[in-house]
Every structure is written in structure tokens, then in C-alpha cells.
């Protein structure tokens, strides 16, 4: 008997030890439940983290664009005169963000914002010989822009040099035009302006449509093509906390008058999916937790009946009701704790094993594994609390036992 343990702990541990089979079975049941929760949560967290990482390496966290142009009809609101006005939405010209240098300079001073990259986006035709394709031309300042969208990671041929006569194109466009590194192609914009550009790099963004349409040129080149010298159509931003992007976007919109769209808004479907996953995971957690709790409760209810004589003796020897209560609450807590420790480590090992077993055809991992140690701490703590709570009903029953009746059996 350990002399550093209080009496209730000793009694609880001894009772659990004596009912060995029951104890083992219920610990196994708790362990399976906790393992499922840990495995699922770790898997979900990894997949979501992986998806978010993929999304965020190919697009800015916040994009600023000029506000829409709207028609303001003139009305003659005179008494007795009715005006039937049809207001037509004006066509949206490609416009520069007004005072973009000032806005960019302001945003650079905000501590939440890590990168500010002005870009010029326009559409154009890529022409080579008889073939032509419509493309999106993005004029960038490579040093800043590549910090937001990691084009260098996707380059399959050439380099990321973007001088005034250079262009980076996707693999699909290169195939369609029949061009290779170092070839020249004509880019003509809707404005009538056209330039001959040299292909310095070919990238593969992992998406066929993007590889067909996306091209990158120097900011100055795009400005010339779209007849907006000195202008930019968008300002791309990255922020420190990606999940705060929506809030920061709203603040920027209010402070500058431009339209600010966060990645959360532009990927709202993805977030709907994430929320649905998280919700179903929570529901599964709750029900697994409930079944574990009822398992523990039922084992302890039986144990109280089996031990009613022991309880009677303890009461006859002066054990207080509160002590009996604690003995059974502790048993619930200890069962859940032991089960949770076994379950959390099993679940953790299972996800690591499963992750290493599941490979892409080329042998690389399917997705990077994200295991938050807090997940284990949380699972174990919640299980212990659940165990104590589940023990409440049987424990009160044990404490309420009349010693005379209990001893007579």
C-alpha cells in the first residue's frame, strides 16, 4: 500500500485491480473510442492544413481591386412628376486603382500584413505563326510577387527571370503554341498594343486551365499592353494570420475605399466543406464520447452492486458518504484516463503507420502529417472528466447505500 496515496485512491485502485476482467474490458472499450477520435481528428487536421497550404501557395491572402463603377441617374424629383428610370449597369473598364502607391505605402506599415505586391492583370492573345490562344497577362514585380505566389516552385524549365521583354508561360500554352524555352511569341492586347516577348520560363501549376491561361510578365510590360502606364489593377497581400484575412480585408476596405477580397471569401465553397467536415467530426466525437461514458457507467453500476457488502463494511468502520462517493468517482476517472492514454497512443501510432503506408504512385507522401500534441492532452483530459461524470450516478448510489442493508446483502 503506497503511503503517499490518500485512502480513496488506494481503495479505488484496489477495487479496479480486483475486478480485473471488467477493468480490462472497459479500458479496451474506452481505448477504442479515444483511438478513433484521435485518428479521425489528426487525419482531418492534416488534410485541411494540406489543402489550405496548397490554396495559399497559389493565391494571395487578400486581393485589392478598384471599386465597381456604378451609374448615378439624375432624377428630377418634382411634385406631380413621375420618372420611370431604367438604370443600366455600366460596362466595367479595366481601370487602375486610384492612388495605389499611397494605399500600398499605407498597407506596408500595417503590422498584420507581410507582403504588398501591386500587379497589373489584363487579357490578351498569344500569337505564334498560325496559332493563337487567349491568355491572362499578369504584370508583376517578381521579387515581391514570388513571395506571395511561389511560381519558382512550379518552374519546370528555364528560370524565373522577368525583364521587360520576358514572359513566363504554362506547360499547356507552350504545347498549344509549339514553343520552347528561348522562343519568341507575340502578345497582343485588346487595346491594340502588342509586344514580342521571349519565353524565359515554363511552369506547371498542377491545373490544366491555369497552365493554359496564366502568364507572367514584368509590371511595366503589362502596363504598356493595357494602356495604363503607371497603373495597377490589383494589389495582392499576404497576412500573418491567414484566418484573420477576412477581418483584415474588411478593415482595408473601410480604410481605403477599394474593394478587398480575402481568400476566405473567394474560396467560400472550400470553407463550407471544411465546416461540414469539422461539424461531422464533432458529432462523431460527441457520440463516441457518450457511448464511452455509458460503458463506464454501466460497469460501475454493476460494480456497486457487487461491492455493496464492502461498501457496508467501510461505512460501518466510519467511512463517510463523501469518501465512498469519491472512491467510485475516482474509479470512473481512472478507467477513462487509462483507456484514453492507451487509445491516444494507439490512435497516434495508427495515423503515423497509415500515413507512411499510403503513398502516391511516385513514392512521395500523399499529404504532410500534422499532429498537434494538444490533441492528445485534450483527448486524455476530456476522457478523464467524462469518466468522472459517468461515474456520478453509480457513485451517488454507492454513497446512499444503507450500511445495514448492504451488510445483510
Amino acid at each position, binding site marked *: *500500500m*503506497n*503511503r*503517499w*496515496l*490518500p*485512502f480513496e485512491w*488506494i*481503495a479505488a485502485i*484496489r*477495487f479496479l*485491480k*480486483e475486478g480485473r476482467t471488467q477493468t480490462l474490458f472497459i479500458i479496451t472499450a474506452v481505448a477504442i473510442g479515444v483511438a478513433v477520435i484521435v485518428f479521425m481528428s489528426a487525419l482531418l487536421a492534416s488534410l485541411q492544413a494540406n489543402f489550405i497550404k496548397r490554396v495559399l501557395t497559389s493565391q494571395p491572402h487578400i486581393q485589392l481591386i478598384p471599386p465597381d463603377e456604378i451609374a448615378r441617374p439624375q432624377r428630377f424629383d418634382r411634385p406631380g412628376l413621375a420618372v420611370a428610370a431604367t438604370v443600366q449597369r455600366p460596362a466595367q473598364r479595366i481601370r487602375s486603382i486610384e492612388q495605389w502607391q499611397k494605399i500600398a505605402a499605407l498597407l506596408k506599415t500595417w503590422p498584420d500584413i507581410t507582403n504588398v505586391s501591386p500587379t497589373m492583370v489584363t487579357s490578351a492573345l498569344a500569337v505564334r505563326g498560325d496559332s493563337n490562344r487567349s491568355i491572362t497577362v499578369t504584370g508583376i514585380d517578381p521579387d515581391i510577387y514570388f513571395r506571395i505566389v511561389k511560381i519558382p516552385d512550379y518552374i519546370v524549365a528555364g528560370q524565373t527571370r522577368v525583364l521587360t521583354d520576358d514572359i513566363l508561360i504554362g506547360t499547356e500554352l507552350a504545347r498549344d503554341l509549339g514553343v520552347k524555352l528561348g522562343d519568341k511569341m507575340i502578345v497582343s492586347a485588346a487595346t491594340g498594343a502588342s509586344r514580342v516577348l521571349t519565353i524565359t520560363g515554363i511552369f506547371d501549376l498542377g491545373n490544366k486551365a491555369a497552365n493554359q491561361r496564366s502568364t507572367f510578365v514584368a509590371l511595366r510590360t503589362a502596363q504598356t499592353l493595357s494602356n495604363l502606364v503607371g497603373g495597377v489593377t490589383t494589389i495582392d497581400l499576404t497576412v500573418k494570420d491567414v484566418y484573420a484575412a477576412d477581418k483584415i480585408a474588411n478593415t482595408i476596405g473601410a480604410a481605403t475605399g477599394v474593394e478587398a477580397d480575402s481568400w476566405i471569401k473567394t474560396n467560400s465553397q472550400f470553407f463550407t466543406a471544411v465546416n461540414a467536415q469539422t461539424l461531422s467530426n464533432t458529432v462523431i466525437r460527441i457520440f463516441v464520447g457518450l457511448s464511452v461514458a455509458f460503458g463506464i457507467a454501466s460497469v460501475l453500476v454493476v460494480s456497486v452492486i457487487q461491492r455493496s*457488502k*464492502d461498501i*457496508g*463494511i*467501510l*461505512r*460501518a*468502520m*466510519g*467511512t*463517510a*458518504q463523501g*469518501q465512498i462517493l469519491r472512491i467510485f468517482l475516482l474509479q470512473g476517472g481512472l478507467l477513462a484516463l487509462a483507456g484514453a492514454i492507451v487509445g491516444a497512443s494507439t490512435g497516434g501510432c495508427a495515423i503515423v503507420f497509415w500515413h507512411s503506408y499510403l503513398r502516391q504512385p511516385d513514392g512521395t507522401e500523399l499529404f504532410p502529417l500534422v499532429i498537434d500534441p494538444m490533441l492528445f492532452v485534450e483527448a486524455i483530459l476530456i476522457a478523464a472528466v467524462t469518466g468522472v461524470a459517468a461515474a456520478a450516478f453509480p457513485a451517488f448510489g454507492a454513497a446512499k447505500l444503507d*450500511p*445495514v442493508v448492504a*451488510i445483510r446483502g
Partner: protein
Amino acid sequence: MLRDIDLVLRRREFVALMGPSGSGKSTLLNIIGLLDRPTSGRLFIEGSETSTLDDAAITRLRGRSLGFVFQYHYLISAFTALENVMMPLLVENEFPSEKIRERARALLHEVGLTPWENNLANNMSGGQQQRVAIARALAMNPALILADEPTGNLDTKSADQVFEMMRVVNRREGTAFLIVTHNLDLARRCDRIIELVDGRISKL
């Protein structure tokens, strides 16, 4: 069940309680043992009147002043002999200190069970278990030990041993005993015999 009971148990007394089954012996024992409350009448234990005490105080008084030995010994099977003897002391003191351990060892020595102190309760003979129960009843140094047919389940030799053990404890420690028994031989070796018939004391 019980009527007109007027009974005084003195310190150091060794009393037998006899009577046919159904005469109220166990009820009387439970009331004196504070396990049951009387519907009327008063009970004094070491000078304190018990009908006004609340459950917690009753539990405390029961733990300190009274010891119990039952027919079916009722040791807690999950614990060893030594731990069963320590049990009443633990209830009071929470932590099993070396002092408590020593006290329990001394009590087991007194009932002659030192070699068996680490046996689980279930791995001992009936007589041995009953002696452990007596040691346990003595742990808090109670004024009175209530024994409900302590020898009822034992063979003659073990019954004699257990009875002698109680008598020795009574003389050495000065603990009073109230023993329910059907065995007239044993009852005659007590200081006094109380006989219950139909809930009344018929002979003192």
C-alpha cells in the same frame, strides 16, 4: 421489534446476548452500533446522546467508539490482512503512514496472525479471517465491540480460539464486548448473559 429495553453496558464488561431467532438480537445490535436509529427511546454512547446527531456525526462516533465483528467476517477481499486492519485508521487519517502500519502490525500480532499479514483476505481460513476482523475492530481502540455471532460459522476448535482471543483482548485492553451467540457453553464463560424474547429483555 423491540420494547421496554433498559440496558446499561459498563466499561470492560464481556456480555453475551442470547435469544431465539426473530427475538430482535440483530436489531438491538444495529441500534447500539448506530447502524439503525430507534423509532423511540434514547441511546447514550460514552456519555453523548445520539438521537440528536446528524449522519456525519453518527458516522464519526461509530468509527471512533465502536468496533464490529460479524458472523461472515466481512473482510474486504481486495485488501490484505494488514490492510484490512489499517482500514478504520485510514478512514480517519487518509494517508497510510508508518505509524498506522505499525499499529496494524501490533494488532495482528496480538491476534497471532503476523505470518499471514500480507495474505489477501480471501486466502485465509474462516478462523483466521475472524481474527483479522477482531484486530480490525480494535484498530480505533473502541470502547465497545459488537459481535454478531462471531463464532457461528466456525468449527468448535476455531470457535473456541476466536472466543478466547476476544476474552484476552477484553482483559488486556479493557474493551467491552457485546456478543450475540447461540452457544450456551460460550455464553456461560461471559461476565453476564442478556436474554431477549419477543423484543423484551427476559433475563439479565
